[in-house]
């Protein structure tokens, strides 16, 4: 045998297709590992810069995309003077109350129902079909029914938001019941625990991570549905503000409203993540 060719260096494609060797402290081949903080900062900065650039250079008309400084100015103006004779804080408070009112209601009813569905085949058999039936329907589709049945005041708005988060919260709590290991349950029973004690001391605590995740998902659906709910004869609220501004082509108010809704939703999500770290530090570790 003869050594005819020197070993070929792999081509660019081959090198890209392979996992990179790791630095000390990392594990080879873990999908998507690495710190993304500075990249995210750069990404946001670039988007803001492009936004500023295309508006300042006049490439896009303010009617379509107003400049960032115009949106900011609008925010200050509405903060000081209000919008359609209602102060900015009242718009915000109205929407927040609608979403969180519906959220509290959905948790109070949905969490016990979900846990009961996880525990009892009878309750699961009864409630699974209606929940699975309405869950994939977009809230906008049953909005007319809400209006016909419950009128155009607060009830139908809160109910619409409630329904949008009810299903994910029920399903989260229901699947959380399965988190307890059978050994944990057997251990409790072997100490003479009753079914209720097993529920209280084993199943409920072990379902906490899934319950918290379900609450996060649920509130997300709530904010998504807010604007739909405030299409119904509303005179206040962030969704109403965005909708009526769009009718007068006040694009800067629309964009500002979007940012305010996003800011509230993100703040709440951060609070939930903080709670998660405090309440279930053991999540995924045992």
């Amino acid at each position, binding site marked *: 045998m003869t050594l005819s060719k020197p070993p070929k260096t792999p081509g660019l494609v081959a090198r890209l297709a392979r996992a990179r060797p790791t630095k000390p402290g990392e594990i080879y081949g873990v999908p998507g590992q690495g710190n993304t903080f500075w990249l995210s900062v750069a990404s946001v900065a670039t988007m803001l810069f492009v936004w500023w650039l295309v508006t300042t250079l006049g490439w896009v008309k303010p009617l379509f995309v107003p400049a960032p400084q115009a949106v900011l100015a609008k925010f200050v103006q509405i903060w000081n003077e209000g919008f359609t004779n209602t102060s900015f804080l009242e718009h915000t408070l109205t929407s927040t109350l609608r979403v969180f009112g519906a959220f509290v209601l959905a948790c109070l009813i949905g969490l016990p129902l979900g846990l009961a569905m996880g525990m009892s085949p009878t309750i699961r058999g009864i409630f699974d079909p209606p929940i699975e039936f309405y869950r994939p329907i977009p809230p906008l589709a049953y909005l007319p029914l809400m209006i016909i049945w419950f009128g155009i005041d607060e009830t139908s708005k809160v109910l619409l938001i409630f329904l949008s988060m009810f299903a994910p919260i029920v399903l989260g709590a229901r699947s959380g019941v399965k988190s307890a*290991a059978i*050994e*944990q349950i*057997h*251990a*409790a*029973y*072997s*100490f*003479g*625990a009753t079914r209720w*004690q097993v529920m209280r*001391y*084993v199943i409920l*605590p*072990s379902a*906490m991570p899934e319950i918290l995740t379900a609450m996060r998902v649920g509130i997300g659906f709530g904010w998504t549905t807010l604007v739909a709910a405030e299409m119904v004869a509303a005179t206040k609220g962030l969704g109403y503000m965005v909708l009526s501004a769009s009718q007068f082509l006040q694009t800067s108010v629309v964009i500002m409203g979007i940012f305010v809704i996003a800011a509230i939703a993100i703040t709440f999500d951060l609070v939930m993540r903080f709670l998660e770290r405090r309440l*279930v*530090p*053991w999540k995924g*570790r*045992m």
Partner: protein
Amino acid sequence: MSLNIDHVSVVYPAADGRAPVAALSEINLAIAEGEFVVALGASGCGKSTLLNLIAGFLSPSSGTLTLDDRPVIGPGADRAVVFQKHALLPWLNVIDNVAFGLQIQGVPKQERYRTANEYIGLLGLDGFQSSPVYKLSGGMQQRVGIARALTCDPKILLMDEPLGALDALTREKAQELILKIWGQTGKSVFFITHSVEEALFMGTKLIVMSPRPGRITHVFDLPFSRQFQGGAPARQVKASPEFIALREKVLNIIFADEEAVE
């Protein structure tokens, strides 16, 4: 304390078009006060089924189980179980895990902490009372599990491969610790293992089980754990000619079963 298993069989009903499976067939076994009974056998021989029967998680298809002449009809605090893993409650710290059984029984906090602390000391976990259990090593987690089982003062300890997930060195230390505690508390123990050496070293009685159907094929009385308790070092016990001879004998039985399966 006396546990009597009399002509017990367990048949799992037919499923997916397969014939019914006889998990256990005609088991007779008596466990007396202070005995350390070890069950050993190829996988599928019904060791865990037998433990679940004694624990009350499973009822027999035929035959009777009695504990102190009362039939076993469900789980109860007179039979404590130590699992291989996943049985601690990660939202509780060490002392609350150890005191969990007493909490279930409605013992006031101060009293159950006092009892828990005794067993925490016995298992060498002092100073870790408020540590979260998910931060402990596997060996320490198992010690928490054993302490928890002991706090309710059960008549018999049921141990389902409690050391199976530990590394070799930790495992040998844990074996000695369990024997020490067995000697101090005088509890009866039913212990499942896959390791022949562990079975011979720890038990006063060894039952060897075979699969299809699950049954007890051999019973040996063992002197080795008494030798260790009499002061002989563990390594010396395990290196003695009698120990090695019996180990080879038992290994031959088990390998014959495994080959019969294949």
